[in-house]
């Protein structure tokens, strides 16, 4: 603290900038479009694991201004399909080591994650999910109201609500994280290894010659490159259009909201698929809440009253004592939804144009693993086993993944 006062008085800046600003070079080996967790993680692992440092990350606004700064920071791996579980489990493991790896505290709090079941069919699905998870070595099991009451005594576990709580899928390694710290940490780590991070740099066109990527046009000038990675989430169709690649994606807004700060009472993450609501309490005491995507496609970042009404109603059903608590703010991000609630990663028909998109409402929790595996794909030109199920050509082949463990979407 004395240091802080001293530096405050003498006007010097005690802390270095987290990453440098650079002039845009004429050419890069790899250009990553999108400065969110996926793009920055890919840049970081390209530099750290594969020695490819002549990389540019282009961000239209500022680092983490898209979905990476707008999500509700829940990390878990208790998905339903074997492909999904394997993928998200590696991500959770990377997140567990991330603070050490980046030498930056990302405040990952593995406080336990409860997915509530309100009817017999949900209980059956939860049991199914628990079995799939356990076979793959993920800590996940079904618990009943007696045990739920010990973990979260504030839930209304009586038979009074319209949808009483019958059971829950308990996933102890699930938790929340400081999302800004994750993007800043990755950006710093990538910058230290020579990656150029260009903020306020909008991509305006992609040059394709003879079916190959030749360069990228930006608001700050042209770049020659042979490899472009599209990691732009909700805006990915617009970027893919520039390269002439068609994507099976629609963009939906997903809203979230926080209440005023309360005393700490909730030390688990509570999710209810039937009521379309998820909630956790942040370190500041605010309840961070989200629900399902808006029911029509849009690029709008506006908040709606309809969302707030339905979310509040469901929250009060779970926690009746919250009825007098005030909402502090509400915001929206845009999600790139696919029909099978699974991402699209890998090559496209245009050579050198790769995608890491379709992350919908579940992208943040998968940032590290998709960054790492996309970096591996770019460096080795071989598709890692984990990415194979999520190829773009699966739609034409009729091999959809069908991840019904995804949140924020109706199934």
């Amino acid at each position, binding site marked *: 603290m004395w240091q802080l006062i001293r530096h405050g008085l003498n006007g010097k800046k005690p802390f270095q900038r987290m990453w440098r600003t650079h002039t845009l070079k004429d050419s890069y080996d790899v250009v990553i479009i999108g400065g969110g967790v996926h793009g920055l993680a890919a840049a970081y692992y390209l530099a750290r694991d594969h020695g490819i440092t002549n990389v540019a990350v282009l961000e239209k606004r500022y680092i983490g201004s898209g979905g990476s700064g707008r999500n509700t920071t829940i990390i878990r791996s208790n998905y339903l399909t074997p492909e999904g579980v394997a993928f998200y489990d590696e991500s959770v493991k990377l997140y567990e080591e991330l603070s050490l790896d980046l030498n930056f505290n990302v405040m990952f709090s593995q406080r336990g994650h409860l997915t509530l079941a309100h009817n017999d069919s949900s209980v059956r699905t939860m049991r199914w999910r628990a079995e799939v998870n356990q076979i793959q070595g993920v800590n996940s099991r079904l618990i009943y109201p007696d045990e739920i009451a010990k973990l979260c005594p504030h839930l209304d576990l009586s038979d009074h609500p319209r949808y009483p709580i019958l059971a829950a899928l308990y996933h102890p390694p699930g938790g929340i994280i400081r999302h800004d710290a994750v993007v800043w940490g990755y950006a710093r780590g990538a910058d230290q290894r020579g990656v150029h991070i260009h903020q306020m740099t909008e991509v305006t066109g992609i040059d394709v010659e003879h079916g190959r990527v030749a360069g990228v046009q930006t608001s700050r000038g042209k770049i020659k490159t042979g490899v472009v990675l599209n990691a732009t989430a909700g*805006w990915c169709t617009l970027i893919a259009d520039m390269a002439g690649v068609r994507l*099976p*994606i629609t963009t939906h807004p997903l809203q979230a909201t926080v209440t005023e700060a309360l005393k700490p009472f909730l030390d688990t993450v509570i999710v209810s698929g039937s009521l379309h609501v998820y909630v956790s309490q942040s370190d500041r005491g605010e309840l961070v809440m989200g629900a399902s995507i808006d*029911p029509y*496609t*849009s690029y*709008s970042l506006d908040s709606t009253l309809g969302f707030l009404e339905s979310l509040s109603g469901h929250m009060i059903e779970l926690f009746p004592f919250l009825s007098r608590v005030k909402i502090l703010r509400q915001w929206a991000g845009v999600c790139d939804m696919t029909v099978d609630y699974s991402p699209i990663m890998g090559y496209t028909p245009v050579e050198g144009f790769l995608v890491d998109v379709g992350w919908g409402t579940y992208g943040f929790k998968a940032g590290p693993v998709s960054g790492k595996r996309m970096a591996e794909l770019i460096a080795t030109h071989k598709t890692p086993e984990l990415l194979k199920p999520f190829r773009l050509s699966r*739609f034409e082949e009729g091999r959809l993944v069908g991840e019904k463990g995804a949140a924020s979407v109706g199934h």
Partner: protein
Amino acid sequence: MILLTCPNCGQRNVSEFRFGGETVQRPSPTETTRATWAEYLYMRKNVLGVQSEWWYHGACGCWFIAERHTKTQEILETYFLPEK
């Protein structure tokens, strides 16, 4: 977006309606290859701008088309699919 105009019933709250996705051209069943079928089923323009899209009004059971801007949410026009 708060209000939507049903060509049958007039202006109603958007919560009465269901979104049916952007309009797509169904390929001829006799000439369909895997690629054109996948294109029709899955690939979407997902435009940032005015989009021609399907809506269903639960109150009267009508499907109709709306021309809506996907960013500003402005609805330019709503109409029934013209009969051929």
